[in-house]
């Protein structure tokens, strides 16, 4: 299930200026996108498993990089999400 607006947010944040604005004021940037409450909640929790089911995997990676997450932490979250997914 692709979430268009979540994907659009992640796509737009490839722009370095947009990413800097997002890191400085997430709420302001998120208000521009019609995201469902549960999606906003997943963003707030950095819920890789939830978000990864709704966007292209490359965009997911770009997003967490733009949001300031290190590769090491992102990888750890991804691997953990794989374990969670396999346990239903």
């Amino acid at each position, binding site marked *: 299930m*692709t979430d268009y607006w979540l*994907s659009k947010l992640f*796509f737009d944040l490839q722009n370095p200026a947009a990413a800097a604005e997002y890191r400085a004021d997430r709420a302001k940037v998120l208000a521009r996108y019609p995201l469902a409450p549960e999606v906003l909640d997943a963003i707030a929790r950095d819920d890789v498993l939830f978000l990864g089911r709704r966007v*292209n*995997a*490359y*965009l997911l*990676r770009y997003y967490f990089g733009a949001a300031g997450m290190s590769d090491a932490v*992102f990888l750890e979250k*991804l691997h953990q999400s794989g374990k969670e997914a396999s346990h239903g």
Partner: protein
Amino acid sequence: MAELVGAFAASHAPLIARDWHRFSEERRSEIAGAYRELGRRMTAARPDVILELSPDHWTNFFLDNLPSICIGVGESHEGPSEPFMKGFPRSVAGHAALGMHIAATALAEDFEPSISHHLKLDHGFCIPLERMELPALPRLVPITVNDLEPPMMSIRRCFAWGRLLARAIASYPEKKLRVAILATGGLSHSIGESTMGAIDEAFDRDCIRAFTDGAEAPLTQFLEAHMADAGNGTHEVRNWVIAHAAAGARGFDLIEYRAIPEVYVGCGFASWRV
């Protein structure tokens, strides 16, 4: 008529550029050596134009409009915007007439490519071009292939596209125009998935063997059976298939293969027998 003078493949992992300074001297030497050998062979082929196949990493296209194939028909193309590609030229000369000829040939043969008069090149196009250390960059006709977002072209269709490119090159009216093909991406890798970082060396070795042998049916069967399980980035092998078919499916010579965990990719480099 134009002439196909070479066909090559190279991986394009972005961390090769972004994290170069973090690699060991030995690793840098391995990667640089592979690209340099590719560049030596490309230079020996003396191309006037490089026809380059690479995915669009969400640089030009989004879910609003996502072509399976887009041919860059501009007089020039925009250099990469990624911060780690700042050393690459901001503009690369194109070959608009050849690009349009390929598009027209495709349409005449019932293929429906997209075209772009202003294509932005990302790391997929630019890392191999930069790392091959060519004495001068030939003009470029970039072709984006959707390897990222399903649905994607079948392997059968990739073969058909490769044969079409060969016919388009052969029918281009400018005499003695020398054209090389460069397919970038692959081999196995997984990006943004729970398996990110995994490299399927067994898949890569079997894949290389199938390309080396050259025959269409076993290569198609192998990729259809195994490509999707070797990581989402592995879909970029479609670009290799197009080059393979364009070169006549006579097999290729492997220049180098290394599974490189630092860049999350099974990196392959090869030149086809044209």
